């Protein structure tokens, strides 16, 4: 008798009707959004504070580069000694004082620059000052050496290497970034999904054990069926939760940005648009981001995402189910968690570090075939274009391993669910497989 649909239905409904599940589903996006808005709001507050910086330029070489903007006002002081300037800055509650020594020589003047402040100054301000000073002083230095600055500027050439594969597919640097974001998001999503819902499966197996209902159930159902039903039912609940999160998230984001006028999402986009209008170069960049999105192997990406997601998730969740069956309570699961988490973490780090460096290098290629890391690593690689045979082979290996793990997990599950009061060791587990 096939009871799989019945078991899936029960698992799904119990998960979805569970109070903490409902609370998690509806409250956590709220918390996330509130957190994001608070952060966005605080950043805005921080940015809105205008900094007052005093400038004492005794050399008289550079004071004219400091033009006040909406974040910083520069107050150029004159006819003061350094001590007077310090006292004045302190009194006027200036953020700090930039002092350039009394040297007409550009090189000596550049060595004499100092910044005084109450607290250690913000990094961005210092680097801003540095870049202003550098440009001005370099130009002065060039002039001193008899070089025409205008000519240099006019002769500057900017290079943006156009990339194209042998098959004629055009790519660019922005393409790589977009690909990285897509691959990274897919891999990371899988990683999170496995950890959250794998744990949920494990807990539900333990629950059946501790409530002692398990023997009643497996006198009507094959343990493998029960295990698969649990895995599938829990995954469906997980997908439901994810979809609800997406919907609530987007609704809340819109509502909040309308009500509070905080442009959580749009601000960066709008900035970009505004700048794009002003600057044709950035305009081209925005266009290239949009075009690189359409350049992505989207069909391949979607199919691969679905297949590797399911494969990888089933592989790991069967292991979680086996662990749940082997122990009596959640505290005993610790010793078995490490071997599961390690390959997952490894996959994410390999994905993040080696795939960025070289998506088709030896390390990333090898790990995109090893079944315990392949779902994550392969998903990160695919946006960069992986030959179909490689994807196919990797998937076949994944499915083969998955079937092996399910068989192995089912063995442990079958014996484990009827074992009480023993804290099993790995040796014990291997013995169970032989029963």
């Amino acid at each position: 008798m096939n009871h799989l649909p019945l078991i899936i239905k029960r698992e799904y409904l119990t998960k979805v009707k569970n109070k903490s599940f409902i609370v998690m589903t509806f409250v956590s996006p709220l918390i996330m959004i509130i957190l994001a808005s608070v952060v966005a709001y605080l950043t805005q507050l921080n940015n809105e504070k205008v900094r007052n910086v005093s400038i004492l330029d005794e050399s008289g070489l550079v004071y004219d580069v400091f033009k006040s903007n909406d974040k910083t006002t520069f107050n150029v002081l004159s006819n003061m000694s350094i001590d007077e300037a310090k006292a004045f800055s302190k009194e006027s509650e200036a953020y700090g004082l930039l002092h350039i020594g009394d040297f007409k020589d550009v090189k000596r003047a550049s060595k004499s620059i100092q910044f005084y402040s109450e607290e250690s100054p913000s990094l961005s301000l210092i680097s801003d000052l540095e870049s202003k000073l550098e440009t001005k002083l370099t130009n002065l230095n060039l002039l001193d050496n008899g070089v025409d600055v205008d000519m240099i500027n006019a002769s500057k050439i900017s290079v943006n290497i156009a990339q194209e594969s042998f098959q004629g597919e055009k790519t660019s640097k922005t393409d790589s970034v977009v690909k990285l974001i897509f691959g990274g998001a897919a891999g990371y999503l899988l990683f999170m999904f496995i950890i959250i819902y794998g744990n949920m499966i494990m807990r539900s197996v333990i629950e059946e054990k501790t409530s002692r209902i398990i023997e009643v159930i497996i006198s009507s159902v094959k343990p493998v069926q029960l295990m698969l039903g649990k895995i599938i039912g829990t995954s469906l609940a997980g997908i439901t939760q994810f979809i609800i999160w997406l919907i609530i998230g987007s609704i809340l984001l819109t509502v909040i940005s309308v009500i509070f006028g905080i442009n959580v999402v749009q601000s960066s986009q709008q900035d970009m648009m505004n700048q794009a209008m002003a600057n044709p170069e950035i305009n081209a960049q925005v266009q290239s981001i949009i075009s690189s999105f359409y350049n992505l192997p989207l069909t391949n990406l979607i199919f691969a995402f679905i297949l590797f997601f399911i494969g990888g998730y089933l592989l790991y969740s069967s292991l979680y189910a086996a662990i749940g069956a082997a122990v009596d309570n959640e505290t005993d699961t610790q010793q078995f968690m490490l071997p599961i988490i390690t390959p997952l973490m490894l996959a994410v780090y390999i994905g993040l570090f080696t795939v960025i460096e070289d998506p088709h290098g030896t390390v990333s290629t090898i790990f995109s075939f090893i079944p315990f890391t392949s779902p994550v690593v392969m998903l990160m690689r695919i946006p960069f274009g992986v030959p179909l045979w490689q994807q196919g082979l990797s998937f076949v290996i994944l499915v083969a391993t998955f079937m092996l793990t399910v068989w192995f997990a089912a063995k442990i599950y079958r014996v484990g669910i009827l074992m009480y009061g023993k804290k099993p060791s790995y040796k014990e587990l291997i013995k169970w497989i032989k029963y």
Partner: protein
Amino acid sequence: MSNLLEVNQVSKNFGNFRALNNVSVSIPKGSIFGLLGPNGAGKTTLIRIINQITMPDSGTVHIDNELLNENHIKDIGYLPEERGLYKSMKVGDQALYLAQLKGLSKSEAKERLKYWFERLEIGDWWNKKIQELSKGMAQKIQFVVTVLHQPKLLIFDEPFSGFDPINANLIKDEILRLREDGATVIFSTHRMESVEELCDDIALINKSNKILDGKLIDIKRQYKINTFEVGIKANDNAILKHELSEKFAVSPANFKTLDNELKLNIQLSNGASPNDLLNYLTTKGEVSHFVELIPSVNDIFIQTVKNNQ
């Protein structure tokens, strides 16, 4: 009478441990069969093999002359010793789920559940969660779920644990009624008085081996020791006692009497008739008590297991 269940030469090993060693058991149709044995003897393993939870390493199990297979799952109702229900699931939903797993349709299951809930007067529990019920209440629901699909074979492992005497009696009556309706019952327990009361046949398993089985009454005959408990009032009890102990093997007996009688267990030699003993005794005094000692299941259990060691 034909047998409903035939277990033939079944063995099962767990690693190096042999849990069952060539065990054969036949269970007649319509009987209540007591499966007895000390803790860890292998009873649960045998029950799990019949339920197809574990597979035997060797040997066969037949139900109704058919080799045990998946279709038999719906023919068996099993109440395990280690039992429980989903704590946070509603009673009704849970019972429906378990009944559907046994192959009942949802509407059929609902109808029968209504009948049983009314019968056991637990109708208003339908929407309660198990964690709101007492242990005995949960046990009642479990009993209902076990018998709901009207299986041919019912297996009860310690069915009365957790019940108060009133409810235990209620369940006992239900079991007897189910037998009358044609079910065969396997009954595993350590409570010997309920075996005495309910079982027609028994099998005794000790240390993975079956060491005794058959009709309870035959086993009792086999174990009878031809001993009679006697109460007699003579002129001088001491002289009579001396006289009797020269003729028979006697031992002191202990039972309640109204007068100051001589109380003895008298064992007859093989072939001697109890009538001769009674006739002899009437010549010696006034007989107020004359009962054949029938070995209790408890005695048989303890004696057999001890001899087996």
